[in-house]
């Protein structure tokens, strides 16, 4: 097997420089690459374009990169729950492209699957369709949307092996596997890094071929955004 292990987040992001386009896995604060985000903040790299379903909250997730003004442009589907984000957006300090969630996911998948464009009905007749090619198939209108072109994908998995194979846990899977396939360089941080052979080949969600660097992350906070419970008994 080919060994993808690196020492940690700093080594993993060593060649992420100003102006790069990054994909960041996660849905809300669930399944986000916490260690990579911290390392980016520490490194201070700027003018980033971030493709991520959400923009974090004020003091966690991508919100940390927004607070330090390291992000030039966000490409997301939902950016509620982040006051600093809304402020930068309404004051035009931050470029924002909002696209439908399924379009976001499928444009990642298209990149990973070597498909230059896909067709989706999402957004037909809305401002999302402005300037885009539409096409009718079987009486229904579709937009043609292009595969993303990202320099790096930063994903978070539950377990991984040094060959780069990844297994995700519960709904922290979300965008991580499709972004892992889509990055020119894919960096995976995992809660537990094991040796090749310890993961069942049938359980692997992301084959190692897609992952260029992997490390075991530290100090996962895994913050809960909406803690909802029901009373016992």
């Amino acid at each position, binding site marked *: 097997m080919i060994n993808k292990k690196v020492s940690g987040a700093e080594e993993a992001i060593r060649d992420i420089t100003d102006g790069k386009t990054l994909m960041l896995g996660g*849905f*809300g*604060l*669930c*399944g986000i690459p916490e260690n990579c985000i911290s390392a980016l903040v520490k490194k201070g790299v700027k003018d980033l374009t971030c493709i991520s*379903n959400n923009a974090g909250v004020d003091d966690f997730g991508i919100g940390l990169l927004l607070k330090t003004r390291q992000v030039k442009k966000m490409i*997301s*589907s*939902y*950016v*509620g*729950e982040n006051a600093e984000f*809304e402020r930068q*957006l*309404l004051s035009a300090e931050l470029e*924002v492209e*909002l696209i*439908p*969630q*399924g*379009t*976001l*996911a*499928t444009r*990642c*998948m298209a990149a990973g699957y070597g498909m230059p464009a896909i067709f*989706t*009905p*999402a*957004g*037909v*007749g*809305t*401002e*999302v369709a402005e300037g885009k090619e539409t096409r009718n198939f079987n009486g229904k209108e579709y937009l043609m949307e292009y595969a993303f072109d990202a320099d790096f994908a930063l994903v978070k998995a*539950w377990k991984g092996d040094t060959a780069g194979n990844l297994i*995700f*846990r*519960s*709904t*922290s*899977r*979300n*965008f*991580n*596997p*499709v972004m892992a396939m889509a990055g020119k360089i894919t960096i995976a941080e995992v809660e537990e890094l094991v040796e090749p052979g310890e993961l069942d080949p049938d359980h692997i*969600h992301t084959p190692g071929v897609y992952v260029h660097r992997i490390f075991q992350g530290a100090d996962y906070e*895994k*913050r*809960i*955004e*909406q*803690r*909802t*419970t*029901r*009373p*016992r008994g």
Partner: protein
Amino acid sequence: MLDKNGIARRIAKEIKDGYYVNLGIGIPTLVANYIPEGVNVVLQSENGLLGMGPFPFEGEEDPDMINAGKQTITTLPGSSVFDSAMSFGMIRSQKIDLTILGAMEVSENGDIANWKIPGKMVKGMGGAMDLVASAKNIIVAMQHINKAGESKLLPSCTLPLTGVNCIRKVVTELAVLDILPEGGFRLIERAPGVSVDFIIQSTSGKLFAEADVKEMDLN
């Protein structure tokens, strides 16, 4: 007039045994509480889950297990997890039988607006544009009139659209209405204690209403 739970309770009656259902944020989430005993449904959460269960008991919240509203949840036996591309794949290929979502405005030709108020609020469309563009069966849960008493059921939407000509049924605090394929709202049921006249006054889009329209049965 219905409260939010009343709207959810009425919508729950539209859910049939064997349905896969996607519930949006807000009132639609409440619908899960009113699904009748013996009606087997599977709830899809578009972040990547089929078989969503109730909220966890306190102390059992799992940060890795959330729904599309970012709420901590549980799963039921027989649930499955998948990635976001497959999730919207099953939505686009119409494997989901019913979608229930909220709206700020709906028009008489079935357009819906629910993601943006220019210059004021931009939260994003999330999965709503995918859902309304793909679903074969959508119910909108919404307020009929705003706090100023103005109708949100309009001749045409004033806010940026989420989807075009896609909504066929609306449940509000006042009524159940169909949207006719040829355009126009059709009053199907009125909420308990609400008069047909009040619904007519409260609907600025074209409305077809018979005088003796029946009152909702919420049981």
